């Protein structure tokens, strides 16, 4: 992970501030930075989203392609995640970026492995033969701390934005398969993202924990807990990261905080996505870096 080098005095400053519930930029321990979410930014994809959380910048593109269902689940489609971190900083080029990318992809697989996160049965075209495979590609444009949260928000927004064309596969008398696409470009399947969880990272600094840590705060924290929370408050996955260890009591407290923060995050995100959807084609497009 890209990291900053801090002196001991700076670390002490941050730790003491967090004890008093006051972080360097004035936030409380449970406040997120100002986030910007925009969907439908890349036109060649089935769905895309861009999230800027403070300095962290994530771009997610989803492409839906037809494929064969997995053997164990013949009447469901599936998702494939790929994360690219190389555009970030020189130390993340090559092996370092690849390891971080695989780590993030594995976390996303685990978060989405719970059965009812995405309705996979709606992605099936013909059982055992054809299904939709959603290739979710995540690009880490800039790392400003707390990448897991930003990536999960972007993936949820991109899944909300995904439009999969309605397809029927017909079989002739000779057995040749024909794919029939509906003529109307707006006739498509939309995914239900109500059960899609969001990851909340809680970093332990001193005796308290903070949500949405910046790079400097991550350098002061020895251990963090990644929790994925659904909009109803159920926790679907947990992972501890970092070199330090956690007290069991802190883990219980972090789970409570994570649930609280996650629920409010879902409400805010859904409101924003619905607002953007209602603007429709009249949404002002400024340009990619605008």
């Amino acid at each position, binding site marked *: 992970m890209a990291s900053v080098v801090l002196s001991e005095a700076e670390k002490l400053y941050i730790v003491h501030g967090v004890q008093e519930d006051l972080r360097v930029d004035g936030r409380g321990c449970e406040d997120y930075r100002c986030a910007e979410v925009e969907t439908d930014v890349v036109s060649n994809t089935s769905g895309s989203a861009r999230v800027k959380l403070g300095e962290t910048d994530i771009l997610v593109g989803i492409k839906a392609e037809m494929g064969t269902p997995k053997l164990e689940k013949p009447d469901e489609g599936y998702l494939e995640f790929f994360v690219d971190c190389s555009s970030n900083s020189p130390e993340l080029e090559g092996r370092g970026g690849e390891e971080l990318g695989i780590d993030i992809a594995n976390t996303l697989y685990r978060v989405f492995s719970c059965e009812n996160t995405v309705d996979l049965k709606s992605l099936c075209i013909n059982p055992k033969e054809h299904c939709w495979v959603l290739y979710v590609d995540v690009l880490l444009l800039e790392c400003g701390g707390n990448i897991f949260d930003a990536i999960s928000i972007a993936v949820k927004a991109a899944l909300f934005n995904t439009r999969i064309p309605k397809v029927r596969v017909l079989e002739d008398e000779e057995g040749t398969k024909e794919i029939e696409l509906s003529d109307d470009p707006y006739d498509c399947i939309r995914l239900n993202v109500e059960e899609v969880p969001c990851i909340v990272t809680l970093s332990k600094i001193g005796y308290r924990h903070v949500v949405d840590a910046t790079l400097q705060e991550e350098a002061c924290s020895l251990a963090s807990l990644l929790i994925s929370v659904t909009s109803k*408050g159920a926790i679907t996955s947990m992972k501890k990261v970092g070199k330090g260890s956690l007290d069991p009591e802190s883990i219980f407290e972090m*789970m409570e905080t994570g649930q609280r923060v996650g629920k409010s995050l879902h409400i805010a995100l859904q409101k924003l996505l619905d607002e953007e959807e209602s603007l429709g084609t009249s949404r002002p497009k400024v340009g990619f870096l605008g």
Partner: protein
Amino acid sequence: MPLDHRRLCGPEESQPPALWAGTAAEDDEDEEGTGAAPRDPCALRPLFARAGLLSQAQGSAYVELGSGTKVLCAAWGPREAAEPGPGRLLCEFRRAPFAGRGARGRPGAVAEREAEREAAAALREALEPAVRLGRYPRARLAVSALLLQDGGSALAAAVSAAALALADAGVEMYDLAVGCALCRPPAPAASWMLQPAEPEERRAAARLTLALLPALNQVSAVLGGGRGGPPEDWAQALRLGLDGCHRQYPVLRQSLLRASQRRDAAAAA
């Protein structure tokens, strides 16, 4: 393990016949499951641990769980590393091709490598807080775990074995890391079970693996996923897991003591 090209290689894609014999096999399994007495969810399976069995490695350990999981772990003490900085712990986790209950996993397959890499990262997460890396600057400590048979709770057994192997190698540690796995069956309002066997783990709705440093009461790793429910359920699962780890700790300490006694006896003889 390199591929032996002189043998007849099977087809690229091969599927186990069990997939197609679906319904008959599942009915038998369900009958067995409900016929047998329901398991006490807090019961720990018998654990066998032995340290100091490989002569080539500086430290080694073998852990076997009652459900059939067998893990062999070897550790190598500090070796000089080229890059400056604090000491590093390198973990490797390999599964034997015959370890799983289903089809033989091809040793070089991408999916296998990904799963092994993820398990190795989890192993490193669990061991790093326990090892005093500050005492080994510019050094590399290597730990390699080999799963011989997967009977459920494989990662938890690997964590315990790796901690034992490191201690056996004489690496300075704050405490032994003890691993414990839990799972929750898909029935509604079911309770969490300690140390699931392989069929229970496969059918589980939620799984949790955790590693604890018992003497310090610090959790060094938590890895879980699935339909667990509200935080209270996960908290209850954590408490059960911590209790399980505390109960396994004396067995692991005893095995270390015996290994050092054996070593003394061998040196004196």
